[in-house]
């Protein structure tokens, strides 16, 4: 029995390692290619290890393209949309999870319906609207649209988390002299933390990855966000042969900040989702 168990654990470990290699390989290949010279990249035989590599790709990318302005744009837009989204959505989630009021059902329905609406046909109208506000090529303009894009899903998701926080706690706080809002702030919000992280990550993924609308709204070169920057970069070097080394260096630069961010939040995120689902 124990020998059997040890054996199956070993086989399991082996399978896990194979799967890990499969899942990490594209990421590895990106990093590997980013260190290789054009000659190595263009060769018909791939080189599997980056030894004897070069930093020239990174140098070229950082020197010749506007990576840092794009990073700045992405961070600014994402930060604004994300912070406002979390605040607005958690307030709305409180309202629909804790109160019954006229129009509540309509609001819930709207929140659900809006998520079923494809975004792709509204680009022209969104352009016209921002042009009317004089907000094209501005951080605020894009943030407004992104905020509206992520709020419904976040409300929907946070509602489950709010419902998961026992009302008794709030009532106890109110007996101790807190106002209703005070009770929310002191008791409910701290308990919502995992949920806020989880839904925040979803909003982050959506905002950080968006490029189709951005390409229409942000026409000035120095206003491009990171996805736009990488996409344009991959396209413009498309004269005959793609400079895969440089493109991969660009991809590495785009991916690294997110990988770091995910390393930090991942534990809370999975737990958060489970918490919301099970308790809700």
């Amino acid at each position, binding site marked *: 029995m124990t020998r059997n168990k040890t054996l199956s654990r070993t086989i399991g470990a082996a399978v896990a390692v194979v799967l890990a290699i499969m899942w990490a390989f594209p990421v590895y290949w990106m990093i590997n290619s980013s260190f290789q010279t054009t000659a190595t990249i263009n060769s018909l035989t791939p080189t599997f290890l980056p030894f004897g590599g070069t930093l020239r790709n990174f140098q070229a990318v950082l020197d010749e393209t506007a990576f840092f302005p794009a990073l700045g744009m992405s961070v600014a837009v994402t930060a604004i949309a994300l912070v406002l989204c979390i605040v607005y959505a958690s307030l709305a989630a409180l309202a629909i999870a804790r109160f019954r009021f006229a129009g509540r059902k309509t609001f819930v329905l709207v929140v659900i319906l809006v998520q079923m609406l494809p975004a792709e046909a509204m680009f022209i109208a969104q352009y016209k609207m921002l042009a009317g506000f004089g907000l094209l090529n501005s951080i605020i303009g894009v943030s407004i649209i992104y905020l509206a894009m992520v709020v419904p899903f976040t409300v929907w998701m946070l509602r489950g988390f709010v419902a998961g926080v026992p009302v008794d706690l709030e009532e106890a706080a109110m007996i101790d002299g807190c106002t209703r809002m005070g009770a929310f702030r002191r008791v409910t919000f701290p308990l919502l933390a995992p949920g806020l992280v989880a839904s925040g990550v979803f909003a982050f993924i959506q905002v950080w990855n968006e490029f189709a609308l951005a390409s229409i709204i942000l026409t000035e070169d120095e206003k491009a966000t990171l996805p736009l920057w990488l996409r344009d970069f991959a396209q*413009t070097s498309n004269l005959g042969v793609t400079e895969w080394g440089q493109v991969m260096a660009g991809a590495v630069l785009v991916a690294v900040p997110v990988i770091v961010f995910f390393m930090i939040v991942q534990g809370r995120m999975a737990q958060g989702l489970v918490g919301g689902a099970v308790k809700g």
Partner: protein
Amino acid sequence: MNKMTRGAVVLTAVSALALAGCSSTDAEEPDETTTTDAAAEVEAQDITLWLAGTDTPEVALTYLTDTYAEVNGGALTIEQIGWGDLISSLTTALPDSENTPDVAEIGNTQAATFTTVGAFSDVTEYYEQWGGDSLLQGFVEAGSVGDSIYAMPYYFGSRAVFYRSDIYEAAGVEVPTTLAEYTEVNAAMKDQGVGGAYLAGRDWRSGISWIFANGGEIATYDGEWTATLASAESVAGMEQWQELFTTGGVATATDDDTTTYSAINDEFLAGTPASSTLAPSWATWTLGDFDAETESYVWNPETFGVYALPGVDGGAAPVFAGGSNIGISAASQHQDAAVQLMDIIFSEGYQSLLAENGLGPANLDYVEAYTSLDTFPGVNEIAYEAAANAKLTPAAPGWAAVEEAGIMEDYFQAVAEGGDVATLAAEADAKINELING
């Protein structure tokens, strides 16, 4: 002299500027007095120019902003819009007078989409002033609706056959002089296993030459556009291309034009090497021997060569012209300033600058600097020869939609896979007719 229009005065002024400033590498301070006449008439305005991709070299951008500042006094902002986003960005921005670029470049196959709906100002009155009949006529047509011109030629690149003279020599074949010979030569090399033509199956922009050479057209206009891929001439051309593809080709039917250009470099293909490829003239930047020092390909005149694709009965076959048009946004609030910018663009100084940087100038009077460019000896001469012969896609309102749907790619691939040309052509015609009239 008294007949000269305002713009022409600017033009002379600009030319003078160019003569003073362009030949030296540093941007010299142009003589102020030459510009005062013109500047007095148009008030200083800040305008925006949208260029497609990064095709226009840096030095030309600087020239434009500097010269515009001198001539007009306002500031010129240049945005480079990626080719992939060009249509969507123009569609949204051009009608919007607050945010439209004042002058915008557009790919010549996309021009009709916008000229037919009135997105660009009518610039017919400036035709003479900007070069008149010296301008590349095929491109003028592409930017015209009826007798009115809305988008002027900006630059051209044309297609030529880039080949490996060492492989030709080893195989004992000569540069072909007719289109049929091109097939024979490639079939001979392929039989020996030393080389063949790299014509990607889905690269219709290259393959269309066979249709043009045989007198065929993609579509003809007679009140409305009708696709003519199934005409006898077009079918004959496609059958000739199909024969080449099967007997002398080394590319696969599913290859597209993203890899075509470099195929004749050493060790590019796994199987039989490519001994020639039909590519735009600017492909020269990626052709040659690999230089480890600079990490780039260096054109080697010893083993690389270029010739114009031969016609059916000798001479040069008409090729598809790459390049773009440029026009003034109809919604622009700075029409006069935009005209001033166009004056600069069509001035000798700027046209020569484009030519020196390897872009075929719109005004053929200045083509000398292009053909004599010694970066790639002989290449631009051939490219120019081919451009004189070049043809464009139909200037139809729905042409961009035809391209978007990938109909031409699919048609060429199906033919490359050995299908019956007449049947496939009829199918493709039907699909094109649905979209081409917008």
